[in-house]
């Protein structure tokens, strides 16, 4: 089971969009990693998210993976990028996705 943390800015996404993203991430993980992912969503309260010293509108996603080829990782990241921009209407500059191997997080 992989883990997925989604950090979003308060007031930026509707509950409907969050639900759609949750379900779609589940599908992407299943298709790309043949695995499930336990998702945790964290809302960053207004005034607590900054980018370049200015208020941020960016979402951040961390999704662990098994040990996979780099091309597969690029495809996975691209699928989440495309999902996020399509569902939320954000630009590619407003989504950062990190997909480290789960093994890299084990102390």
């Amino acid at each position, binding site marked *: 089971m992989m883990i997925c*943390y989604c*950090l979003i800015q308060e007031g930026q996404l509707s509950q409907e969009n969050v639900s759609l993203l949750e379900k779609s991430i589940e599908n992407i993980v299943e298709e790309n990693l043949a695995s499930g992912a336990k998702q945790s969503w964290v809302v960053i309260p207004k005034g607590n998210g*900054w980018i370049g010293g200015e208020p941020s509108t960016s979402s951040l996603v961390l999704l662990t993976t098994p040990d996979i080829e780099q091309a597969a990782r690029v495809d996975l990241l691209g699928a989440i990028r495309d999902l996020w921009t399509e569902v939320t209407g954000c630009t590619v500059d407003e989504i950062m996705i990190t997909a480290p191997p789960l093994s890299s997080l084990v102390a």
Partner: protein
Amino acid sequence: MPLYICVAPCGSIPDTGKQQISRSITRIHCEVTNAPPTFVHTLFFDQGQVSSLGPLWKDVGPGCPYQVFGSIRSGRTDDQKERLISGIRGSVAEVLGVGVEQVAVATGDTEAKWTMEGGHMIPEPGEEEAWTNPDWMRKK
């Protein structure tokens, strides 16, 4: 990337302080690494929220009221990391009006090849020109 997460006691940093700190972190990170400022993320959380952050957060100074953990691209030199840590520590302490002993700062390396931002895989430090050619990273 980078992503700096700042943790403090609930309500201890005013909104103006958060902006000052985010600007200081951005300035210091860019001075040390030459990275573009538009990619420097700074997030603030209360101490009670850190358990919700999973692997995004590391307790960098147990017992220390103000902590900053920065996830930065791997490949930075030890000297760069030391300059980041000392610069941010001093700056946060100055903004908050507290002693540097009350501020703990650490960084952790994240492989560039694991991260996509601005629509593309982020380049290794020193290879920023590759940002305009995402096919390059696919071959890595």
